[in-house]
């Protein structure tokens, strides 16, 4: 429905705060008081779908209905922002390919392993997951390796799109020409090459659920870009704890360009790259190579 006929139940401040806190507790997303109008417009769709007349009743539904859990997921789905595209924040991706991947490769080989695990936490429609896989492939450093790029999201809708791997022009606004070879033109849009798709896996996972996050296993690098900006402090700390637990020692965490851990977690150390600053799960001091004098 367009703004032309923007009608439906209204959300008063009290209802907004109750719903906001409920959704926040479920998935970490936090809406400030001035976002009430956005929440009202987005949730109206859910009320229409359920045949519910007002937001108080919707709140009760979320609290007590046997299908409340599924509805919470549906609410989170309409409330989340899923804006993403291929090769977003290229300078950071350069740090990933030129500096992080060689280090991670060296560490794996030292363990006599040829496996690389990367997690895209909050992957939305999958562009980041495929970008990571393409970048790894293009380095040529991992021929014959077992590469696993895992993407998760709370929205089943975007995961369907991610698995479909077919995208329209909006996803290519920052496309790098040399990676065009990884796409096949189809009637529905441009589809990621099957070889890249075979490296990528997707799962429905709420980042706030620490126990479920164990599905991800141990990873060498985590991308969590422009996800935590939608969370409140407590939820951010909760998610960062999960990410920390999932990272191998010395594993890297890449956040969005406007995000920082300064106020959220001291568990990670800063790793200065030539084109970006990233975070790293510390390696125990005793395992570090001796300093050169």
């Amino acid at each position, binding site marked *: 429905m367009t703004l032309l006929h923007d009608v439906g139940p209204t959300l008063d401040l009290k209802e907004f705060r109750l719903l906001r806190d409920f959704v926040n507790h479920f998935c970490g997303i936090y809406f400030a008081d001035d976002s009430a109008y956005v929440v009202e417009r987005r949730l109206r769709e859910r009320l*229409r779908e359920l045949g519910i007349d007002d937001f108080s009743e919707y709140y009760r539904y979320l*609290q007590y209905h046997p299908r409340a859990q599924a509805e919470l997921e549906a609410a989170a789905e309409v409330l989340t922002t899923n804006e993403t595209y291929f090769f977003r924040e290229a300078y950071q991706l350069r740090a990933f390919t030129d500096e992080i991947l060689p280090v991670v490769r060296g560490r794996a080989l030292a363990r006599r392993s040829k496996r690389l695990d990367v997690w895209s936490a909050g992957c939305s429609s999958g562009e980041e997951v495929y970008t990571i896989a393409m970048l790894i492939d293009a380095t040529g450093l991992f021929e014959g390796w077992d590469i696993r790029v895992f993407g998760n999201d709370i929205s089943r809708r975007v995961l369907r799109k991610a698995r479909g791997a077919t995208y329209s022009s909006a996803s290519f606004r920052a496309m790098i020409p040399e990676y065009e070879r990884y796409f096949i033109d189809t009637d529905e849009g441009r589809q990621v090459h099957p070889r890249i798709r075979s490296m990528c896996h997707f799962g429905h996972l709420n980042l706030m659920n620490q126990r479920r996050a164990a599905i991800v296993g141990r990873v060498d690098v985590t991308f969590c870009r422009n996800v935590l900006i939608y969370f409140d402090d407590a939820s951010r700390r909760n998610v960062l704890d999960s990410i920390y637990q999932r990272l191998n020692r010395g594993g890297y965490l890449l956040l969005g360009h406007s995000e920082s851990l300064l106020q959220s977690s001291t568990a990670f150390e800063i790793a200065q790259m030539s084109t970006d600053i990233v975070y790293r799960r510390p390696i125990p001091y005793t395992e570090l190579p001796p300093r050169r004098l």
Partner: protein
Amino acid sequence: MTSDRLEQAFHSADPDVRRQAVHRMSLRPQRTPLTQILDALSDTDWRVRREAISLAAQTMEQDALIDALLVRVVETDNIGLRNAAIEVLGMVAQGRADKFAKACEAAGEGVRKFLVEAMGKTRDPQMVDQLELLLRGSDANVAAAAVEALVCIGGARAERLLQERLSTPHLFLRVSIVEGLTRLGTRVLWEDLRPAVEDAIVRRISAELLGRTGDPQALEFLLGLATDASPQTSSAALRAIAELTGQAEVHRAELIERLSASNESVRRAFHEALLHGDTSTRQGAAYLAVLCRDENSLEAVLHAVADDVANLETVEALRSWGTGLIEPLLMQRHGEPRVWAIALELAAELSYRHLDAVPAGTRDRIRSLIERDLTDATDGVRAAAAESLRWWGDARDCRALVECLSSPSHQVRAAATGALEALAKRVPALVEKALERADLDGPGGADIAHVLSRLDSEGAVEVLKRGLHSSDPRTRRAVVQALAMANATDVAQLIGYAVADEDIDVQIAAVRTLGQMSTSEANAPLSTALDSPFAPIRAEAALALGRREASGAIPRIRALLEDHEPVVIAAALDALAWLKDSEVAAAAERALSHSDDEVFQAGLRASHTLPTRDAERLLSLGLQHSAWNVRMLAIKLLLALDNERTRKLLTEALATESDSMVKHAIESGLLGG
């Protein structure tokens, strides 16, 4: 971990071990001596310092800590320590303006600004006196730091001080003040702002403040900025012009005239912003294009509406454009379907609202376009055509609209439902006839039930009864809800069957509908529903019986007070209060010690029905509850009692309340608002 091991870890060469040691110390802060806290704050690793900041903020030796940090802020060369000290001071030094004043006096010129930064971080209004002196002092660096500190503290006095210094000759300071006032959201008067923006550098960062003046004289400056080579500056100017125009009620016509007469480069900048700007810039550009009645930008404006970028003011401005907009809208017919859908809907609405002013030929054209598009392949266009029939619909359209109700698109069905509801008021018999053979088993079954509920006729009830056999639970639920209008004994029995429906939402709808019916036939199925395995059904049944004043159900509803589901206990208590049960007082008291918020709230509601003294005592318990919404309810109910004692209770609660919304509720309630 023992103290010795903690001490050992604190001196480890491994920064992560030191970090963990300080983290552990922060779990027992009173056992950490001040010297160790200060050592931790000066650690070489930022993560250790960050943990140390949390630790320092918890120490009991606050005065000694503040004294030590005030010295370190000015004396140390260790940037990490200085920043950590500033942050800790910001957290703990509220109410210590005198200490800062002395420290500032003693500090050298180059380092005083660090103390000023810490003063700002305290957000303590008591610091403003000292900051005023520094703002007026001769050191521009310190004055600029004072600006930043005043912005952190905020408030009317800080804003006034900043505005008074807007005409300072120091460019650097003026820039700081303009940026600060912009961040504070201050509305500066045009005559106060004008001297500051004479300088081109200051002007470029003043767009937002210029827009907020509401003065038409600011427009010339903003038009100049709108064509700035920097996209950030030109976008900010454009948004500011939109705000200026939106605010200026008296001078709006004058501003629009000036904007409409602006030169080609300004127009190009506007158009570019409308097409490629960020969301808020597009929003502003769309608004201005409509206000200026710029037909060349109409397609881009409609795109903005379709993208959900345009704001309500823009939509209202489109409506206010009047009949002159109709032809340009109809010219969008060959454009993108979603743009055309909006154009058609708006043209239909405008032509209907200004019926006498629209030529017959145009009206006929719109009518035939609506008829044609009602079968369009694009859902958006089809929905727009159906939506347009809210105004233009007549007897001829009933069948086509009923066909729309079979569409798999929710958008199309919702628009057709709205149009049929409007028609049901004008030509109910024809709508009923068109719906006679409607497919209640199709995707639009629930929508059909909705329209039928508006008809209030025996024929409609007969069609609705058919819907009870639908295989789609959404349809069955809608039918049950719609049948509330019938309120007849045989219908109550049919709805009673729905209490045993396999879908829980149908059951809930049935219980609610039975609760609304006056026939006594409804009581039996409602009593059965009290035994439902589903908690929401038991709760709804108790509420329905309570509303119906079915006092015979009291014993069974009392039993629900022992239910294991909070929602059921809360509903039972509400029902018993409505039924004026003799055991409500005891039940309310028990509810007010329940851990679930909903039960507690039901306890408050029930308490409100008790004699005043008891009610006051029990309701006051709600003021101490940890959940803000529970406190809000207690406040509302105490305000409803409104006597000297409840006012005293609320005044006391106000002193300790931390939630701004709850505070406001008490304040406005006490004022009689």
